[in-house]
């Protein structure tokens, strides 16, 4: 490797590295430092003191605790249901030929649409008097639910919307995973006399383990970052009395509402840490369990 080659490669890399360096790497470091700003003047860009004050603030802040709690509830609400549903649909799509492409397209459409726009559509669907959600529930004799204005139903509404939006993505990944399972496995299992259910348990599921693992990580990470849906669904609020306040929304409020950059950065790093830990746990489990 010669200096000349490195110089030439640098010319090719320069545009990308410039943008990524300025708008990804530098902010990453800066944000880390900002989370330790204890006393600073943003307008003159002077830091008088560094310290753990921001993290201590978060540790004691009831609102932040609520944001954390809500985010975990949201993740627990969305991820398992979404994965089970999408796996089921993918299996059904994989077993038919006629119309399978059509169905795949239909299920995927929500994924390519604007989160903000569909959330506003869902706001209208969840309308307590004139929304179709309550209308359909009414057909089953269920009384109208205050989806978006009551603290206990705001989160379920958000979860329903998010599952609907993200289902198509998971289905596509599962379908891709299913296509890598060769017919020979099924034939072998059939010769061994395995019925449909035991074929699913002993052939499909283990073979799909890496795919499921990937989808789980991606779903968890994406769910931890939920924001747009909440902003649009509750019209610029975080749900009635912060019932749909998530960590990113908290960051947004601290930063854009209160201009408290230090706390906002600290909260963002807490989010990063949580995501990072989940990634590590997932990797650890997958290394232990997926053995073939």
């Amino acid at each position, binding site marked *: 490797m010669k200096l000349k080659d490195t110089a030439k490669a640098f010319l090719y890399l320069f545009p990308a590295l410039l943008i990524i360096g300025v708008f990804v790497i530098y902010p990453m470091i800066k944000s880390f430092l900002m989370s330790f700003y204890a006393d600073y003047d943003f307008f003159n860009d002077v830091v008088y003191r560094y310290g753990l004050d921001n993290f201590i603030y978060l540790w004691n802040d009831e609102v932040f605790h609520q944001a954390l709690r809500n985010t975990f509830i949201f993740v627990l609400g969305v991820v398992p249901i979404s994965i089970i549903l999408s796996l089921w649909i993918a299996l059904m799509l994989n077993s038919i030929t006629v119309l399978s492409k059509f169905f795949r*397209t239909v299920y995927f459409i929500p994924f390519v649409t*604007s989160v903000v726009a569909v959330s506003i559509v869902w706001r209208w*669907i969840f309308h307590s008097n004139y929304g179709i959600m309550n209308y359909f529930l009414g057909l089953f004799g269920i009384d109208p639910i205050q989806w978006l204005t009551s603290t206990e139903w705001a989160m379920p509404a958000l979860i329903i919307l998010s599952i609907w939006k993200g289902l198509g993505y998971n289905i596509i990944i599962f379908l*891709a995973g299913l296509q890598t399972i060769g017919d020979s496995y099924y034939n072998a299992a059939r010769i061994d006399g395995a019925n449909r259910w035991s074929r699913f348990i002993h052939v499909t599921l283990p073979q799909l383990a890496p795919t499921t693992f990937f989808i789980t990580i991606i779903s968890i990470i994406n769910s931890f970052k939920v924001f747009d849906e909440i902003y649009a669904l509750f019209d610029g609020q975080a749900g009635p009395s912060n019932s749909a306040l998530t960590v990113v929304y908290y960051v947004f409020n601290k930063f854009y509402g209160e201009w408290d950059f230090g706390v906002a950065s600290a909260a963002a790093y807490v989010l990063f840490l949580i995501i990072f830990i989940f990634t590590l746990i997932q990797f650890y489990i997958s290394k232990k369990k997926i053995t073939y």
Partner: protein
Amino acid sequence: MKTSPLSKTFIYVMLGIGSILMLLPFVWMISTSLKSGNEVMIMPPVWIPETLRFDNFVAAFEKAPFATYFVNSVIVMVLSTLGEVITTILAAYAFSRLNFWGKDALFALLVGTMMVPGEVLLVPNFVLLSDLGWIDRYEALIIPWTASIFSIFLLRQFFLKIPKELNYAARVDGCTNFRFLWSIMIPIAKPALITIILLKAIGSWNAFLWPLIVTNSKEMRTLPVGLTSFSTEAGTVYELLMAASTMIIFPMIILFIFLQKYIIKGIAGAGIKG
């Protein structure tokens, strides 16, 4: 796998019901967007309005500068996609075909930063753009989004699959590095590039949090930001809100239906490799 006719029927029924549930919000959106104010507020709901009021769309355009929002969204989408394609091609070429000092370490660093959620970058990027004086300007909406590590990763994987011998053959034939990239690699990588362009275009069109933060004036808003501010202003005029939502949602649905092959391939491919 062989499936019995009975369970096949069951599968089609379930998938059919599922599809209806997936599409219902869009049907409801379009239906509402064509209703009169009176038809919107009735129970049980009306699915097909008495008269189709296409003037709701005109009314939405009059109530808020959606034409401006639309133009802004298109400008941001086109320019940021163009920028990203250029930076991605050059970087992916360097990472897949050139030898240079620190290549593996640099690539690992870039892939590692993909783990960091974009939300972490929000505050310092905002501060940086304020210092640059770019807030409420196209620069803020476009320039930070003209490079993507994910795209570089995707295209590099594709470039690596192109046999090295083509590189050698081209050198014997008298190609320079750049000429080889332009005349050989890019034409071959066309499917991957289309995937990257489409994913980027969709992402840019739908982006919300960043444009919300870096724009102040109506003149600079993109469609999603414009829609939320319109929704705060228009409040409960749902027929107009739905008309505006339709305008944002439809271009992407059309794009997807015609080019879904590339989009699905890109998403599935990225997923399998992890």
